[in-house]
């Protein structure tokens, strides 16, 4: 673990989380959530949890994003808040 | 083989549910019998386990043969074994009962319905049997996910109710997981018995304090304790009737079981009672839940919705009884877990029959039912008397223990709440009895020939027999309550 890297990644993760819940376009929100998962996965690699990192990359950032995009494309893309 | 029975209790429904869609491909109608077969085997295994525990004390089963703090362990003591029997028998009865109502309500989903039904039971049994904090979370999620799916296929408006349930339920499960994380970071272990050994040195740590708070908050959401019960009435009212008969009695009771486990096995009674004011808070939470549930129940015009608030009030009984923290009240609380599971399943099976016959479940649908469905209504009267607490039925005895416990603890507010809610139950159920009779009294005199034309229109046998069996079980539990208390529950209560 490297302290400055940890701080930067945490900052990115935090920005992505805030952005994902504020953006009004749901598709962008989902893509930002994918980025959030990806930064999360970097954070875990940095914490020596490689197995968790690639599970996160494949399952959460991969399948999760696909599921969400599928759901958003089946429903509405705009959100009021 | 005999030594492997504890694991079979969980694995049988899981394995059968995996094979269920395949059976469904071949023949759709077979899924019902398949589920019955699975649950009967499971019930036999759990009854066997109960007798083994009664004969030889606590069973420790090591999964994969790894020694406890490193591997996962099943610990089956009297409380567990009793819960296993309750869960497996009630799910068996509901499965038998479900046939006609599923055929009517969800004709095209029978195969997947029974698959998810079995998974739901797997989740419940897994929660009850395990001795590992994280394993409990995994099975909690299996149970919850299956529950969400089963509730969402109900009548109109069920998906929205389910969505709220998902949000609340996930918050509950996440709080539980956070609590476990806080325990793990300060003890380094996940095994309940091991954690109990390590914790006493840490009881003054802020981490443990927060962990207790979050564990209990998470479980409170799952068991629908009064202020956070908001997801329950909508979800259980709109679920298919077989599903509300399965989930309403079991989900809340299992969360109550987890609460008792966390308070008295993971933490020692010493912490819960003396160091922190947890039990005092619990009694007051119980009082509020009883009053809130009873008052809300009075305001309902929908039968199933009214039952949901009765369930909320009953949760208050048990939380309060555990909170009184004396042996008698604890006996009452644990006996009430058994009684309330049986009573709730009785109420919801009756609700299911009424829904099956009249296609809705308003209180006004009970009109004239005493004449049309005498057997169903006889069972309903027994269940209602038990909820009110009339002697030969089981509800009386647990209430009696709870009242004695309240007297010993000198907690007058809880006593008053108990009596008030019994009074409210009298009003609730006699109002329904009146609706059941009143039609005949007003119209019977005008059209005299009506009595000959009105034929008995009883529910199908596959629904009627389980309902009557439940009513009989209620009286039997009442008659043999002394045996149950002295042989099982006396060993199940924690040493206070």
């Amino acid at each position, binding site marked *: 673990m490297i302290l400055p890297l940890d701080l930067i990644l945490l900052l990115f993760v935090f920005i992505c989380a805030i952005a994902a819940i504020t953006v009004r376009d749901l598709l962008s929100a989902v893509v930002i959530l994918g980025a959030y998962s990806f930064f999360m996965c970097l954070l875990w690699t940095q914490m020596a949890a490689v197995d968790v990192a690639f599970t996160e990359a494949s399952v959460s950032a991969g399948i999760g994003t696909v599921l969400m995009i599928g759901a958003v494309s089946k429903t509405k893309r705009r959100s009021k808040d | 083989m005999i030594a492997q029975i504890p694991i079979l209790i969980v694995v049988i429904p899981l394995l059968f549910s995996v094979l269920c*869609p395949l059976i469904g491909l071949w023949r759709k109608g077979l899924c019902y019998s398949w589920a019955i077969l699975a649950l009967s085997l499971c019930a036999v295994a759990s009854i066997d386990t109960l007798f083994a525990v009664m004969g030889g004390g606590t069973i420790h089963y090591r999964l*994969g043969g790894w020694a406890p*703090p490193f591997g996962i362990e099943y610990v089956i003591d009297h409380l567990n074994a009793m819960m296993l029997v309750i869960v497996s028998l009630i799910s068996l009865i509901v499965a038998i009962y479900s046939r006609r109502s599923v055929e009517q309500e969800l004709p095209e989903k029978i195969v997947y319905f029974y698959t*998810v039904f079995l998974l739901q039971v797997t989740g419940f049994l897994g929660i009850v049997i395990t001795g590992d904090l994280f394993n409990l979370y995994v099975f909690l999620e299996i149970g919850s996910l299956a529950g*969400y*799916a089963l509730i969402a296929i109900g009548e109109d408006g069920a998906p929205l109710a389910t969505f709220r349930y998902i949000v609340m339920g996930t918050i509950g499960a996440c709080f539980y997981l956070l609590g476990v994380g806080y325990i793990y*970071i300060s003890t*380094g*272990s996940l095994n309940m018995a091991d954690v109990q050994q390590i914790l006493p040195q840490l009881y003054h740590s802020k981490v443990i304090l927060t962990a207790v708070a979050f564990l209990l908050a998470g479980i409170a959401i799952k068991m629908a304790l009064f202020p956070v019960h908001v997801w329950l009435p909508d979800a259980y009212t709109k679920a298919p009737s077989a599903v509300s008969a399965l989930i309403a009695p079991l989900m809340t009771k299992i969360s109550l079981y987890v609460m008792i486990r966390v308070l008295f096995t993971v933490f020692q009674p010493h912490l819960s009672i003396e160091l922190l004011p947890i039990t005092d808070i619990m009694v007051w939470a119980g009082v509020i839940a009883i009053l809130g549930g009873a008052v809300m129940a009075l305001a309902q015009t929908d039968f199933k919705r009214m039952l949901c608030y009765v369930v909320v009030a009953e949760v208050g009984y048990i939380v309060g009884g555990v909170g009184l923290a004396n042996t008698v009240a604890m006996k009452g609380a644990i006996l009430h877990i058994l009684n309330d599971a049986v009573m709730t399943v009785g109420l919801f099976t009756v609700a299911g029959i009424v829904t099956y016959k009249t296609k809705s479940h308003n209180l006004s649908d009970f009109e004239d039912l005493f004449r049309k469905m005498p057997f169903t209504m006889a069972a309903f009267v027994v269940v209602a008397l038990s909820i009110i607490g009339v002697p030969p039925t089981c509800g009386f005895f647990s209430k009696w223990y709870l009242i004695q416990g309240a007297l010993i603890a000198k907690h007058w507010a809880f006593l008053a709440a108990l009596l008030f809610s019994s009074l409210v139950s009298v009003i609730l159920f006699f109002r329904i009895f009146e609706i059941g009779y009143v039609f005949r009294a007003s119209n019977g005199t005008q059209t005299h020939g009506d009595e000959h034309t009105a034929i008995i229109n009883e529910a199908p046998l596959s629904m009627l027999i389980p309902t009557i069996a439940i009513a009989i079980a209620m009286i039997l539990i009442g008659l043999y309550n002394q045996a149950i208390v002295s042989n099982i529950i006396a060993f199940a209560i924690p040493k206070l």
Partner: protein
Amino acid sequence: MKILSLITVVFVGAALIYGTLDMPKWGDPHSPASTHVSPYYLRHSLHDAATPNVVTTVLADYRGYDTLGETAVVFTAGMACILLLRAGRKRRGKGHV
């Protein structure tokens, strides 16, 4: 509603932060989490399962039952999605036509 949730969030967050005050330092090799059970896995994994990756050993062997539960969760989710979205769709489609 927004203000109420904000208050809840701040309250829950404060409770969680209160809990962290007594936690071991981040990355402390002598914290209870790293010294109680986990050294056993690191020491014995190679001997018990002949696998250098300790995570795999714990996942599939020591806590294999959790992994069974995990698979069951995936199966439940799959069945739940079929039950909710797929089952009976054909039949209903016929009904409309």
